[in-house]
Structures are given as structure tokens and as C-alpha cells.
């Protein structure tokens, strides 16, 4: 056979290559236009920003909602004010008012593939942080995210004393870590409160109330929407180029305490 190839003229080889191209299997091309459009609408080119704002009537209500929340948090304290102001500035205000996520939360957590602690660390390009709070122990399960959350690690802790069971799963605490350039915002249904917090020098936010989504920018600039799995409260913060979030039916103090205890090491 290889001799046959040797005898092929350039033209024959070219024909064979064209034929090969017609028999190749490509993964089906993803639908990109909506995501790209969503990104561009949120981040218009300079000079088009005001226009985009005026054109997109849909943005006005969410913006009002964001401002209302901002106003309510600004009333809290000067510290809260400055933290929230800078956080929102950093995030570029991508808060959208929205309805609750559809479907039963936690029915299928869709966290990706279950892996061992060692494998989890091999599969992500950042150091996985795990809580070192005494009594919390080690994660019961670890998952590495499915596309498009390839670099996402999820640590699940079974419900136990101090970690009430989520209504839809047996999990008490879910920690998610993902390399993302920005932590952008979240949907804020009525009844959700937003409070700025500080985790070992990193800015974060405590979200208490009803279920919601979080928005991330992946390293490639892709806007990703991730669902809150446990339908509880959420603490989210950026640490370096990694966004961390902690969710469960726990108090702000508990969440912050767990978050502050998180250190790089093995997830064992």
C-alpha cells in the first residue's frame, strides 16, 4: 500500500486529500450567534454604549432593578457602600432582573464527571482551594465540569450538623471553583439580597434569597451562565483568576468562615 502512495502523483494525492476531507467527521458546529450577541450587547464598542443602552429597552428594567438593589445596599454603611460600588464597577453591572430558573433545582446537578481528588487537581489549571475549617472534613464528592465549564471543579459535602440538607438533594454544601476572568453578576429575583463581603482580601458578595443564576466570563471571553444548584444562599468571590462560590442553606457568617478557611492543598 505504501508503495502505492509513493507512486501517486501530486494531483492524485491532492484528489485523495479532497476525498478524505469529504469523509471527515466534524463535531457539529455549535450555535454561537446568540451568545456572541449577548456578549456584544453587554459590552458595546466605545462610542456605541449610550446608543446600545437606548436601543435595548430590555436593559432598562434590569438596570433599574440593579440600581434599586444598589440603593438599598448603599443605605447600609459606608464600608458596604465603597465595597459595593467598586465591585459593581469592576463587574460592569451585568445584573439582570429575571424569573426563577426553570425546572426542579438539584434534580440533576449536572456537575460533570466525578473524579478523585488527585485527578481533579490534574484536570484544572489552578490550585483547588478546600476549606480547612475543623469539623467540616473533606468533600464527599468531587466533579470536574462538563462543557462549557471544562475547568470547573465542584466539591460536594453531604448534609450534616450545621449544614442543612438542600431541599432537592442530600447535599449540604457545594463549592464551585472555575477559572474565569470576571465574575459578572447574577439574576436578582425579588427577595434576594446582595451584600458585599471580604474574603482574605478578595472582594466577594453574599447573595441570600431565592434561586438564581451566576454569570461568568471564561478565559476566552465567553459569557457563561451557571445555575445555582442547591437553591440556597450563595457566597461568591474572585480569587486571582478563579471565581469561587459556595452555596447551601447556611448563614452568611458560616459561609464567610468556611470561605476564609479555604487554602490550596490536596482535596483529600
Amino acid at each position: 500500500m505504501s508503495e502505492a502512495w509513493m507512486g501517486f502523483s501530486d494531483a492524485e494525492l491532492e484528489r485523495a486529500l479532497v476525498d478524505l476531507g469529504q469523509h471527515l467527521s466534524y463535531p457539529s458546529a455549535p450555535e454561537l450567534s446568540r451568545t456572541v450577541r449577548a456578549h456584544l450587547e453587554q459590552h458595546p464598542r466605545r462610542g456605541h454604549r449610550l446608543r446600545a443602552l437606548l436601543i435595548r429597552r430590555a436593559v432598562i428594567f434590569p438596570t433599574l432593578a440593579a440600581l434599586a438593589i444598589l440603593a438599598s445596599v448603599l443605605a447600609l454603611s459606608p464600608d458596604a457602600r465603597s465595597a459595593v460600588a467598586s465591585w459593581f464597577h469592576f463587574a460592569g453591572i451585568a445584573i439582570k432582573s429575571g424569573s426563577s430558573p426553570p425546572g426542579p433545582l438539584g434534580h440533576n446537578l449536572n456537575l460533570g464527571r466525578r473524579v478523585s481528588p488527585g485527578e481533579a487537581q490534574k484536570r484544572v489549571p489552578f490550585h483547588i482551594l478546600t476549606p480547612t475549617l475543623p469539623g467540616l472534613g473533606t468533600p464527599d464528592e468531587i466533579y470536574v465540569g462538563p462543557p462549557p465549564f471544562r475547568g470547573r471543579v465542584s466539591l460536594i459535602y453531604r448534609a450534616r450538623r450545621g449544614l442543612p440538607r438542600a431541599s432537592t438533594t442530600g447535599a449540604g454544601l457545594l463549592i464551585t471553583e472555575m477559572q474565569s476572568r470576571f465574575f459578572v453578576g447574577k439574576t436578582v429575583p425579588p427577595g434576594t439580597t446582595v451584600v458585599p463581603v471580604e474574603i482574605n482580601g478578595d472582594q466577594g458578595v453574599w447573595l441570600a434569597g431565592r434561586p438564581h443564576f451566576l454569570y461568568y466570563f471564561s478565559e476566552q471571553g465567553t459569557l457563561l451562565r451557571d445555575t445555582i444548584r442547591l437553591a440556597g444562599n450563595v457566597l461568591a468571590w474572585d480569587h486571582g483568576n478563579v471565581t469561587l462560590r459556595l452555596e447551601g442553606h447556611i448563614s452568611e457568617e458560616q459561609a464567610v468562615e468556611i470561605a476564609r478557611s479555604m487554602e490550596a492543598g490536596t482535596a483529600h
Partner: protein
Amino acid sequence: MGSRPLDDVELVERAKHGDVAAYEQLVCRYQEIAFRTAYVTTRDAEAAKDAAQSGFIKAYYALNRFRSGTPFRPWLLKIVANEARNQARSASRRTGRELQLAEGRPRDDAAPSPEEAALAALNREALLRAVNALDANARQVIAYRYFLDLSEAEMADALDCRRGTVKSRLSRAVGRLRETLAGDTSELVDERVHHE
């Protein structure tokens, strides 16, 4: 919007003025070729998707540098190809899955007998194995030219080289492919024996 589909030039002009809906149409039009262009480099669907998506986003922000009236596709593919190279270089990305043959495709009309069809399939497998064994640059040139049917100008843009260089790179790549094919003897013979 009228019923007549707008051409690229019109859509680009509108997008330049901030019309995101017009740009969305361009994305719809070229997302498949953008994705495939990225895929032959990354050989990983997720990485290719990310490359295509971020290529589209970057192209939009760079529209003010795009010369009106020139073809949009090569310009876009250049950006996407560059993103794909970055993806493939990124240590965090798991690339290197191989291009694969489609399964269950109807037999070629050109193959008159089952034996010849089987031989053609065997040839394709061997050729693909050789293509997959090439280094990324050579594989890219071959894939752009023969698999994606990019024009010479588009290849020059996507490979970020001069038009004159495209031909020499292609000829070098085909030469390497021949060498690889020549080195594939034993496996091929085995397969052939097995098939016979």
C-alpha cells in the same frame, strides 16, 4: 428588516455602526466555517468553539480596523485561526484528539465494486493517519487547503503569511505527508492482509 438577505458588505457596515443584530447574521453565516477552521487546529470541539466564539467577539471589536468593501470571511478566519492557535498552545487545554472519518456515509459512486470501496476506505484511513501524525503547522496547511477548501488568499490570512508563502508551505506539508505515508508500511500491510 427586509426579506432580501443583506450581503456581507452591508452587514459589516451596519455592525461597524453598532448594529449587533447585523453582526449576529454574520455570525450565523460563518459560524460553521469558523468552527471547522478552529477545529482542524485544536482537534477539540470545546476548544474550537471557544476559539470561534472569541474570534467573532474580537472581530467585532476590531471592525473599525476592517477595510470596508474587502471580503469579510478571510479577515474573520484570520482572527479565528489565531484564537485557535492560542487555544492549542494553552497548557490548560487538552488538545490532540485526532481528526476522524465519518461513519456510515454512503459509499462513493466512484467506487464500482465492494473491493474497491473497501480499498478506498483503507486508503482514507491510512491517509488520515498520516495527516494526524503531521505536526500542527503542516496539518493546518493541508486541512485549510483540501478539507476546508479555503482560497489561497484566505489561507494566507489564516496562516498569517504572505500569499506567495502559502504555496511553498503547502508543498512542504505535502512532502512531509508523503514521508509519513512511506513510513506507515507495516501497519498498512497488516491491515491489508487482514482484509484480504
